[in-house]
């Protein structure tokens, strides 16, 4: 019962190519270009996980890897963020920290216990009276926490690290980042461009509204991305999360490889003469009761047709420059 948009130019999926995967022991199908989360959503999954303390239901929220709502166990590796992990054939996906299933969690009653365990409650409270702890610890460990890692688990794949250097490092492959990279490259500088998503474009990429002269935001993003890729002295790292920016312009990132790459994931540590931060911002969630339950989303959502959607978002673009 898949219902999907298939006419938008911004789509990154190919519905003719089906990818099999296993969820809760059953075979399901996603399409090429799906992340694990979108494939599950298309297969009717709405509750992906349970919160670690009260076991409240957790569904799609940020859609961009900014929340921990959709962490699942994939091929035995716990805490995989399914919103940003692309689906691969034969993946075995499981829920974590649930008794039963995420939809019908037998520990769901913990939500009603919030009066006993308010925010700031420490499990250490159970240390007193002495004697209660060994019993309490066993129960807490069963109920709380997220993924479980088996002691002999081995991460499959090839892992690598590289130490490039450049004149200008641009963090963020949105329109501002791409323009900055192009401007620097025009001056003859060696540029490295890092982008968190698997493609360039930032917030222009999923907008079909007009940018200028009947050109849509999406087309503009594609045009800029082509320009960037055709410029010799810009080295582009896509699907690379920038994980650190330190003194003396030391930048570290973490890249996830594609099928064509010789690595599964790799660490990038680079030293730049100058850094441009064009990361944009994450919107601040609105505060209201039950604002984290499934069905409430952050911005940038591509919903299935025929469904009501409630989106509250505040987005902003900012560019900083550090000489």
């Amino acid at each position: 019962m898949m219902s999907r948009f298939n006419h938008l130019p911004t789509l990154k999926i190919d519905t003719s190519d089906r990818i099999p995967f296993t969820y809760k022991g059953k075979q399901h199908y996603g399409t090429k270009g799906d992340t694990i989360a979108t494939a599950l959503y298309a297969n009717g999954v709405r509750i992906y996980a349970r919160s670690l303390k009260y076991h409240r239901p957790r569904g799609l929220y940020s859609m961009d890897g900014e929340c921990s709502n959709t962490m699942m166990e994939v091929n035995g590796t716990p805490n995989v963020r399914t919103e940003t992990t692309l689906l691969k054939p034969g993946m075995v996906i499981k829920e974590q920290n649930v008794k039963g299933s995420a939809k019908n969690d037998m520990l769901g009653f913990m939500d009603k216990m919030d009066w006993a365990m308010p925010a700031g409650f420490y499990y250490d409270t159970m240390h007193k009276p002495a004697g209660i702890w060994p019993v309490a610890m066993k129960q807490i460990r069963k109920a709380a926490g997220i993924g479980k890692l088996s002691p002999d688990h081995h991460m499959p794949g090839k892992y690598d690290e590289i130490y490039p250097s450049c004149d200008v490092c641009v963090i963020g492959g949105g329109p501002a980042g791409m323009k900055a990279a192009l401007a620097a490259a025009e001056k003859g500088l060696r540029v490295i461009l890092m982008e968190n998503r698997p493609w360039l474009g930032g917030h222009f990429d999923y907008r079909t509204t007009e940018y200028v002269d009947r050109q849509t935001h999406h087309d503009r993003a594609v045009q800029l991305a082509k320009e960037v890729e055709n410029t010799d002295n810009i080295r582009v790292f896509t699907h690379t999360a920038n994980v650190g920016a330190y003194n003396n312009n030391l930048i570290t990132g973490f890249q996830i490889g594609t099928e064509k790459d010789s690595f599964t994931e790799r660490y990038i540590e680079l030293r730049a003469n100058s850094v441009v931060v064009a990361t944009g911002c994450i919107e601040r969630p609105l505060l209201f009761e039950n604002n984290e339950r499934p069905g409430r989303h952050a911005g940038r959502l591509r919903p299935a047709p025929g469904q009501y959607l409630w989106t509250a978002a505040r987005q902003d673009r900012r560019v900083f420059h550090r000489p």
Partner: protein
Amino acid sequence: MALTITCPICGKRNGYEFRYGGEEKGPRPDEKDLTPESWCDYVHMNKCVAGVQQEWWFHRDGCGSWFTIFRDTTTNLEKETPEAQE
């Protein structure tokens, strides 16, 4: 390591390549009139300033030279002059 050191021969390099050689404490004291206390002070006592200090570095994985630099110990950044810059 975010630290960089400017070696007089090799230029600005990653801090991994260097070994710290302690604070610059002036010339070695004259052996005449040298008491165990003053020798101990020279060898072991450090100023540990919070600010710019002159210190020795050894380019272990490079040219092998010993040299001094000025470093702001609060920001871990190299300075060109001993005065703190705002």
